[in-house]
């Protein structure tokens, strides 16, 4: 089963843990609703949609309200230290959490004691703190955008806010940035870099480039990176090999965006409903290609 750990932008949202369903433009967990606008609710919505197509269990969510003060994240970290010990998740995806090095390291210690080692995905704040802690290599997949890739490539930056200017966030710099991430030991097993082109890479270099269909507007739409992470997490937890899951997820996310006929003003909640058809089409393409 897939576990997704993150926050909801509502200070009154309590700490909840449970299976996640969709209800119109909301996710539903333990009787609580959160709007699918961006962030962890968007990631979970994409994972639920992908799980439906794949015929696998819906994701399990650990969520709490946090608007950046870090209070909710700290409660969640505290709870996870107890709860993860007894869990048996196949894949764990860490998302929008306050980056706190001490808590990150405690969570890592707990994961090492789990019955089976889960596949670990980190995005957003938890990816920042994984790199900040010097423990990127403990993860199987990071899903940075180009700006975050520059941060991972900057061995001195503790947060993207401090990325040094000579590390340009430009498309043609991507191969060099990827190489620099691994040169300084700040890379996980795989990187899925999302952008105008999506890149799958590991320490040996770029393994695949996914650039079709290309919709320039997607870069401006908040939450499209979250949906990509949700889709790849669902595919991995279904048992698919990570590189294949990453390539299919990137293609699915691009196709879903294209089906929504996006402009820079499109909201991610308009893209999520297109994920099932996009994933079905991508899986069909793959079957035809194999035959």
């Amino acid at each position, binding site marked *: 089963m897939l576990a997704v750990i993150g926050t909801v932008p509502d200070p009154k949202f309590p700490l909840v843990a449970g299976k996640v369903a969709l209800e119109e433009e909301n996710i539903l967990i333990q009787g609580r609703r959160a709007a699918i*606008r961006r962030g962890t609710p968007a990631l979970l919505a994409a994972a639920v949609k992908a799980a439906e197509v794949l015929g696998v269990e819906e994701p399990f969510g650990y969520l709490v309200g946090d*608007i*950046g003060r870090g209070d909710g994240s700290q409660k969640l970290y505290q709870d996870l230290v107890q709860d993860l010990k007894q869990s048996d998740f196949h894949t764990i995806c860490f998302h929008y959490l306050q980056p706190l090095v001490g808590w990150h390291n405690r969570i890592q210690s707990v994961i090492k004691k789990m019955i089976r080692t889960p596949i670990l995905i980190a995005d957003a704040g938890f990816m920042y703190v994984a790199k900040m802690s010097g423990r990127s290599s403990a993860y199987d997949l990071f899903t940075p955008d180009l700006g*975050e890739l520059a941060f991972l490539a900057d061995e001195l930056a503790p*947060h993207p806010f*401090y990325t040094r200017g000579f590390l340009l*966030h430009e498309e043609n710099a991507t191969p060099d940035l990827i190489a620099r991430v691994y040169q300084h030991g700040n890379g996980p097993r795989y990187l899925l870099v999302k952008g105008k082109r999506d890149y799958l890479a590991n320490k040996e270099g770029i393994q695949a480039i996914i650039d079709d269909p290309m919709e320039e507007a997607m870069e*401006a739409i908040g939450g499209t990176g979250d949906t990509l992470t949700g889709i790849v997490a669902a595919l991995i937890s279904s048992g698919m090999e990570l590189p294949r899951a990453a390539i299919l997820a990137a293609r699915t996310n691009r196709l879903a965006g294209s089906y929504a006929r996006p402009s820079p003003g499109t909201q991610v909640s308009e893209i999520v409903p297109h994920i099932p058809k996009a994933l079905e089409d991508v899986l069909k393409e793959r079957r035809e290609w194999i035959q």
Partner: protein
Amino acid sequence: MGVFGLLKKKSEEAIENHHGDRGFLVFENTSEVIQAENLLKKKGWEIHVMGPPPEIRSGCDLVIEFPLIEELKITEVLKDAGIPPLQVVPVSSPLLKPVDLFQTKDFGKYLMVQAANMKLTVEKDSLTIVNISGGGCPDVPYLAEQMVSKSLKEAPSPREIGHTLCGYALQLAYEEMKRRCLPS
């Protein structure tokens, strides 16, 4: 002059403290740093928001670099305002400098400005904020909820309601967007 203006003037990767005359103020959280920065700048002090040195770094951190000789007055002002610093430390090694590069993308009807990992997109005709993307700290989805669909003139500034470095990066993108779109 706003933060953006101050940042644009520097070209060094980090501020050196060759004469030992600079110190930094450490606060409980980034919200307090932002409040203290606003207050001290209003009072005319030459201060800079910077990244802390590794030995005191705990996560999503900022510190305020200030002229050490002004320590007494500055700490008094901050105490009176209810935001006393946790520590006052002399600068002994280079502090990290925040991002000072902006990228813009013109989509025709829309303009996107990026600062570090944060992107802000505005519809040019109406000056409505239509999207906020990027970032990873938990105030990003909250800031987006509060700012998207509002006019650039009326939306709350990330500095007022944000709490983290991502919020601070969005503030820089927001100031740059205002500089480009709103007559001064």
